[in-house]
């Protein structure tokens, strides 16, 4: 029997906002309906549900919807499901769905990521916030020193890039500036980016944790993003242009934000090319996780678009990563421009670009191959997506 392929057959997204009144379960259903519509599928054809990180009971706003309740309220007859945080970063949920359809266990699987971190802050009684008074697990090695946020942890490695490789703020700022330009052309980003970020404004922004300033950190948002993964032999049921998951990779060496020498993006980046004939030069656009602006630099280096320690020079001036540049980056705005969708937004935008469906922000040249990534620090997952 020929090897079965996995395709992304539909994408959908709810309204994206800050402190949205709409319940996160309803945002999720909104995104599911849009994705089903896009794919031309109906709920009775869905037989799998995959998510990252699953319902997060200890910090509900981070992930307020689980696979169980989606199966329940949508009446899905699920053959396989998974919602787990112990995966190599957000997009690994799509990788697991690809595995399930390749194995023939599922035909069409919903993958989703719902975030309600802004709405949750406005309603801490219902959406339990993170506790800071007592810590255990991996945060006990950082939080007691008021290295509270992943911004502080990422800043340590970004500062090393400044010291060792000469990264400047003008160079780093190109990630957020590029994101804001693209976000202004993305209707789903209207609540997040209202004006273009200039270099002057970036340079005068207040610092969070050096060298990361306010604009280098993504912003809590409320939204749901859905990706439908279908088996190659079920595509006759799909109406949209299918996008093949040509390769996937992931990495967790040690789950630690301070013991690792290099972020996991370097290993996952190298490994993405192991099971494909595609090379970095074949890639038409990249959608790189930018929860913090330093992370796309690690992906550029890790995937081999430039040498280690050269990522900031690659993006210098912003022309190379612009929509009409040689490697358009985060064409929908990324998380810095379009909100903290937590990984899934990058797959959504890659598919939209590869279908030529991005409207005013569509990149030129009939793009056929894209990379979407997720993760930061010790965890990373990447997808190579292709339009056949």
């Amino acid at each position: 029997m020929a090897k079965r392929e996995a395709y992304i057959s539909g994408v959908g997204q709810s309204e994206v906002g800050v402190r949205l009144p709409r319940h996160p379960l309803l945002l999720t259903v909104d995104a599911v309906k849009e994705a089903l519509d896009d794919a031309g599928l109906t709920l009775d054809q869905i037989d799998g549900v995959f998510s990252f990180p699953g319902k997060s009971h200890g910090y509900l706003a981070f992930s307020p919807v689980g696979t169980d309740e989606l199966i329940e309220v949508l009446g899905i007859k699920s053959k396989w499901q998974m919602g787990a945080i112990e995966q190599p970063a957000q997009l690994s949920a799509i990788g697991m769905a690809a595995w399930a359809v390749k194995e023939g266990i599922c035909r069409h699987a919903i993958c989703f990521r719902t975030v309600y971190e802004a709405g949750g802050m406005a309603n801490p009684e219902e959406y339990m916030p993170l506790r800071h008074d007592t810590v255990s697990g991996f945060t006990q090695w950082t939080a007691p020193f008021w290295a509270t946020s992943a911004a502080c942890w990422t800043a340590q490695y970004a500062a090393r890039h400044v010291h060792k490789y000469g990264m400047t703020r003008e160079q780093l700022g190109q990630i957020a500036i590029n994101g804001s330009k693209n976000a202004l052309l993305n209707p789903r980003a209207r609540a997040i980016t209202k004006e273009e970020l200039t270099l002057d404004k970036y340079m005068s922004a207040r610092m969070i944790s050096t060298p990361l300033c306010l604009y280098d950190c993504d912003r809590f948002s409320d939204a749901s993003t859905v990706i439908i993964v279908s088996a190659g032999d079920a595509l006759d049921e799909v109406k949209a242009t299918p996008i093949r998951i040509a390769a996937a990779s992931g990495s967790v060496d040690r789950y630690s934000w301070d013991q690792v020498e290099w972020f996991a993006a370097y290993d996952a980046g190298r490994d993405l090319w192991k099971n494909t004939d595609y090379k970095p030069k074949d890639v038409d656009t990249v959608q790189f996780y930018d929860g913090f602006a330093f992370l796309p630099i690690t992906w550029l280096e890790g995937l081999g678009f430039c040498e280690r320690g050269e990522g900031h020079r690659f993006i210098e001036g912003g022309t190379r990563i612009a929509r009409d540049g040689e490697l358009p980056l985060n064409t929908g705005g990324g998380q810095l421009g379009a909100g903290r969708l937590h990984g899934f937004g990058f797959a959504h935008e890659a598919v939209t670009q590869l279908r030529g469906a991005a409207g005013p922000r569509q990149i030129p040249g009939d793009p056929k191959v894209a990379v979407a990534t997720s993760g930061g620090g010790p965890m990373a997952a990447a997808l190579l997506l292709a339009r056949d």
Partner: protein
Amino acid sequence: MSPPRPKPKLDQENRAFWTGGAEGKLNITRCNDCGQYTHPPRILCRHCQSENVAPEAVAGTGEIDTFSINHQPWAPGLEVPYVIARVRLDGVPGVYLTTNIVNCAVDEVNFDDKVRVTFEERDGIFYPLFEKAN
């Protein structure tokens, strides 16, 4: 007045690290079989899986591997700015501690600065902070 530091929940694996400062000791878990260190501390050696591990008082000196000046008050009343550093410990290859550099101005801190441990006690926890060694 800054708020109290987040308090680690003590257990069998981490107790020696967080309480060693009572005796002025920076305890890092070491394997009595292969001699290598395991940090964060575990009930077994992460290098050879031996269960013959025990906390060992290390020199308590090191160098600043990398650092960031933090300006964001992550809790109400937290005084900023302050330095968050990753310190590589002398004699403990491959082990880093995230910590604060204290007793100097934030702009006096640099890469590769030599530092030594100084403990801040609160509620039975001895937080290993570092200060410049000279």
